[in-house]
């Protein structure tokens, strides 16, 4: 099988789901003729036309608000927010509306929308093109949150998101778009939402990560393996619902847990994973749970030294692994 990029996974999922189900449509800024600023929607406009591949006004709250309304009236919108950094104007529509429509109507209405957004740093995106936003939404029951790290998962999970009857936020790490290549199975397949994946088996310690950090953790695990430290790398894949059994099963095996995320340390989603392990896995632990994350500064700077300082690197992760292994 040929190697494909992660963004091809996005594109193939959209193309095939729009073909399979004419209720599916795409909206966002520049998703039409241009095919998106990252070319995630390339080819869709030519195939499906303007009504189903719609360039919207530059107004994020209405991108989500209109998607919600259109979902009420028999369609399945896939809304693209050009960068996760610009999702904040739509926070209200996502949190007060999409997430609560089923709950507040006691099941009378559902809200089958997908919100895609590229997130994450390491691309010289500066303060406003590098953010991780998953923690804001992880706090909100009623939303499903997916962050794929491989091309295969990207396609399978995006298909699952589109077929899901509830709102799904789908965050794609922009640095992985072309960096990460892998096989994409032929034919139609769905990767279930709510399941973590063990990317590397190990015995000495477990590391939990998502998005780009999965790959940095794999590199770090490879490095410390030379020193005899066997690391298990668990790709969280879906922040909500979170695969708690998989997390606890890995901790049971290794008795040591490291959580890695590129968001700011304080209140980042990794804090929740650490809390779950501490609360439900205390008896299994031989060492405290450790976190490696971005520093508590407002956002990721543009210049090279400061961007590198912010983003957890394979080296920093390897250092934490050594520390934890020797505890």
């Amino acid at each position: 099988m040929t190697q494909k990029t992660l963004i091809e996974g996005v594109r193939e999922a959209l193309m095939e789901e729009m073909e399979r189900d004419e209720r599916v449509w795409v909206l966002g800024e520049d998703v039409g003729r241009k095919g998106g600023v990252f070319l995630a929607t390339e080819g869709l406009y030519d195939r499906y036309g303007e009504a189903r591949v719609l360039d919207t006004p530059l107004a994020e709250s209405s991108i989500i608000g209109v998607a919600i309304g259109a979902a009420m009236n028999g369609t399945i919108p896939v809304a693209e927010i050009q960068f996760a950094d610009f999702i904040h104007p739509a926070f209200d529509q996502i949190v007060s509306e999409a997430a609560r429509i089923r709950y507040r109507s006691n099941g009378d209405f559902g809200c089958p929308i997908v919100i895609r957004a590229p997130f994450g740093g390491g691309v010289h995106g500066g303060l406003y093109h590098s953010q991780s936003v998953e923690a804001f939404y992880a706090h909100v029951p009623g939303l499903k949150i997916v962050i794929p790290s491989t091309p295969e998962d990207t396609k399978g999970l995006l298909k699952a998101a589109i077929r899901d009857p509830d709102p799904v936020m789908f965050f794609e790490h922009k640095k992985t778009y072309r960096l990460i290549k892998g096989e994409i199975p032929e034919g139609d397949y769905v990767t279930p939402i709510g399941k973590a994946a063990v990317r590397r088996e190990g015995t000495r310690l477990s590391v939990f990560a998502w998005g780009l950090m999965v790959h940095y953790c794999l590199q770090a695990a490879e490095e410390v393996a030379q020193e005899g430290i066997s690391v298990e790398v668990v790709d969280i894949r879906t922040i909500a619902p979170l695969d708690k059994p998989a997390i606890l099963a890995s901790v049971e095996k290794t008795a040591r847990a490291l959580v890695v995320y590129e968001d700011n340390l304080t209140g980042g989603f990794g804090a929740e994973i650490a809390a779950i392990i501490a609360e439900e896995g205390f008896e299994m632990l031989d060492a405290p749970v450790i976190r490696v994350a971005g520093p508590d500064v407002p956002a990721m700077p543009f210049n090279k030294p400061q961007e590198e300082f912010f983003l957890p690197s394979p080296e920093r992760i390897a250092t934490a692994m050594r520390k934890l292994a020797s505890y």
Partner: protein
Amino acid sequence: MYRQMVLARAVDRRMWVLNRQGKAPFVISGQGHEAIQVAAANAMRPGSDWLVPYYRDLAFCLALGQTARDFMLSVFGRAEDPNSGGRQMPSHFGSSRLRIMTKSSVVGTQICHAAGIAYAAKVRGLDEVAVTCIGEGGTSQGDWHEGLNWAGVHRLPFICIVQDNDYAISVPHRLQMGIDNVAKRAVGYGIAGVTVDGGDLLASYAAVKAAVERARGGDGATLISAKVARFTSHSSDDDQRRYRPQAELEALLRRDPIERFRGYLLDEGVMAEDVDDSVQQEATAEVDAAVTYAEAAASPLAEDTLRNVFAEESA
């Protein structure tokens, strides 16, 4: 339409009584707004056209097919409440069957939803119109602008009715916008702007009917500014005597849309006094029955707090 207004008023008055009796923790009213709402409902095709409502739309929702019982079930927060199973405060309407979209308490978000419903209707080739309501204070929200902009860009079958009662809780119209009439903004969106006396049932009907025809004919969206009177305080947690002069409150009573239409019907000889009496009695009887039923109805189960977060078959 007269009957619908009378019923709405009777339901609305009763909920305040229940509030004073300590039986209804919170109520919010549509008294004074009935004419524009009932007119709009009758200009629509119920079950096919959509209403994306706001919290004053009691008369609107009753005219679209909700019942006094449905409403009283929500006042008491009962399990059978069709709007939300007792989860939301009363007047947060919603019914998929009647195509009344579920509403949050957030002022303004609904305008984008109506634009989305209308966009889907247009793309799917459905002969449907999306009507949404908001107060004049709500028009200051960004979502109001964003939704109307969509309606203009795509010439959507969309109608926004601004029920302008001069106040947003206590904030007067002059501190809300620099214009006397919000319909003036329509030109900025490339849609039709219409001003109507929202206390005049027949004028309101004509205005909404024309907007519905414009929408159905593919001629795009309409912004209707309907001037109305807010008879009650903003809600049961407010006392409007603190910020509205006594003379203003007294003058309001002369703007009662139901009295105006009643006078018209009697003067024109369309309705006899005794018919009016029976209309009033029927409304009272319906409200009595609704309250009796709702008060006795079961509350939701505490453990059901956890239900309907996600689709249950997939959860």
